[in-house]
């Protein structure tokens, strides 16, 4: 098992969190400025002050909610990633390990290609959420067929279920699409991307983040214990298998919510907890909120890049996070080899 060093000597935790909050703010400002046409800080101020020209109104009504939504989705991903890494005791664990992405993609495919008569936007979010979370339930059921599963059993079941769901989703995409455009419709969703939410959507997303933070906080102690090893965790008063199941469901629910609003965004759930652990240490009471802050900043920045690089088109958010994630892991590798 890898144990990474903490970069900075133990100092004030509060100081670290202030730093993270400041980083998030900078990220939000950057993302608000970025886009198919760059908005100077003065334009931003004018928009916030209530300017009536179309550029200001567009900033306020379209771009700002999108930036906030991106940060909130990133917070969910960071949070979910921290929970998953805690449950699997592995800094390389990421939220899509247990089939969430396959399930979400199936839900989205059905929502986008089957005329269900439901209102479009909510249907997509709801079905992708149910797909993501449902897939995790399936994995838990499969893993538990022959007794109480440990984390290795969960992983195996996750790989199997993800493979089957992936095949099913590809088939559905082909079978349900009417012509080429519709195949692209679903594929674009799987590459990830934030859509500007309306006020109700934004409020819902914010409440989900708050709820997720509170829920994850209750898991913090157990995740710490789990990190000591199954036997030691047991010795310290935890039922590792039952707790792992509960934590997995919470983590998967958080990730499913993120996927419902932002599609399949890779690497954030992997990088954010990594960076957070480096900054605030391994105890989950601090790690989880730190991971949420970092995830929010990351996705806000990547969303800004996605909108700014190829105007008037956008690069799918998932591609940007992957392009950022790759070099990150090369840096990690270099540090490991040096140490």
């Amino acid at each position, binding site marked *: 098992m890898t144990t990474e060093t903490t970069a900075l000597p133990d100092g004030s935790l509060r100081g670290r969190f202030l730093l993270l909050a400041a980083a998030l703010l900078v990220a939000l400002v950057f993302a608000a400025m970025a886009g198919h046409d760059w908005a100077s800080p003065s334009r931003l101020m004018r928009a916030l002050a209530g300017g009536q020209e179309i550029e200001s109104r567009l900033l306020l009504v379209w771009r700002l909610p999108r930036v906030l939504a991106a940060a909130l989705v990133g917070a969910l991903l960071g949070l979910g990633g921290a929970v998953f890494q805690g449950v699997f005791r592995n800094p390389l664990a990421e939220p899509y390990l247990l089939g969430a992405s396959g399930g979400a993609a199936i839900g989205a495919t059905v929502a986008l290609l089957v005329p269900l008569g439901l209102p479009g936007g909510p249907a997509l979010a709801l079905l992708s959420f149910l797909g993501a979370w449902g897939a995790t339930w399936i994995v838990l059921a499969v893993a538990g067929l022959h007794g109480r599963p440990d984390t290795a059993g969960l992983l195996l079941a996750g790989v199997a279920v993800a493979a089957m769901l992936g095949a099913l989703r590809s088939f559905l995409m082909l079978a349900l699409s009417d012509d080429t455009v519709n195949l692209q419709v679903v594929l674009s969703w799987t590459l990830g991307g934030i859509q500007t939410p309306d006020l109700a959507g934004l409020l819902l997303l914010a409440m989900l983040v708050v709820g997720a933070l509170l829920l994850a906080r209750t898991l913090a102690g157990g995740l710490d214990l789990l*990190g*000591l090893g199954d036997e030691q965790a047991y*010795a310290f008063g935890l039922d590792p298998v039952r707790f792992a199941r509960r934590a997995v469901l919470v983590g998967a629910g958080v990730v499913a919510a993120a996927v419902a609003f932002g599609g399949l965004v890779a690497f954030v759930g992997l990088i954010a907890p990594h960076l957070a652990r480096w900054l605030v240490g391994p105890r989950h009471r601090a790690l989880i909120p730190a991971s949420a802050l970092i995830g929010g900043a990351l996705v806000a920045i990547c969303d800004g890049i996605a909108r700014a690089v190829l105007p008037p088109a956008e690069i799918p958010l998932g591609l940007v996070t992957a392009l950022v994630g790759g070099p990150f892991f090369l840096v990690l590798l270099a540090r490991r080899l040096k140490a």
Partner: protein
Amino acid sequence: MSAPSATTTGAAMRIDCRDLGASAGGTVLLDAVSLSFTAPSLVGILGPNGAGKSTLLRLLAGYRTPERGVIAWNGRPLAGWSAAERGAACGYCPQQFEPAWNYSVAEIVELGRERRPAGALPREAVLRESGLAALAQRRWNALSGGERARTMLAATLATQPGLVLADEPGASLDMRHRLALLTRLAAYARGALVVVVMHDLDLALRFCDRIVLLDGGRVAADGTPDAILGAGVLERSFGLSLQPETRRAGHDWVVGIG
């Protein structure tokens, strides 16, 4: 470490196990083991490799369920205890521990304390009594094997549990620390039930009130150190001929020469 105060987990702990049986694969690990332990007592579990010592301790701790037989703590079947109750009442220190994250010594002691925050000693006191005060902020990957072992034991004892189950806690410690460890455990056992799996024959004979000798999954002997020595069971189980020597006053350890 001082004897546990009155805030330890209630009345004296007792463990009863009857007709325990466990196996793995096709191998029988334990067979028809029936034992009873009552506080206060320091019990040493000895035996050659593969005798089933760690398996027995895991069963007593409830980490593993026996295939046959029952175990009861304080008269209540172990299966009826919740994980939290077990964690609060018992200090179980397994043989191997490999944390996934780079915890500091202080953080691990904290995690140990959180089993029963009400009855736990303050963190500084725990660190001081285990001689870890200087290492409090050191991270796991910067600790030696002995320091790691002492940290885990400190965390285990931080809540002053009425029952302590330790699996070779001195394995990675040097002689001086091993001696200190057993001295502490003996003192602690004046007010609690401490069951330790050990390899050090001489320390076991010196400190334990009672020795249980396991051999081939069965109880080969069970009694006071003198009784065990007298019966010659040790030589039969370990396949060695032993020369007992009395330690002279003023010396810490008897060392065999030649």
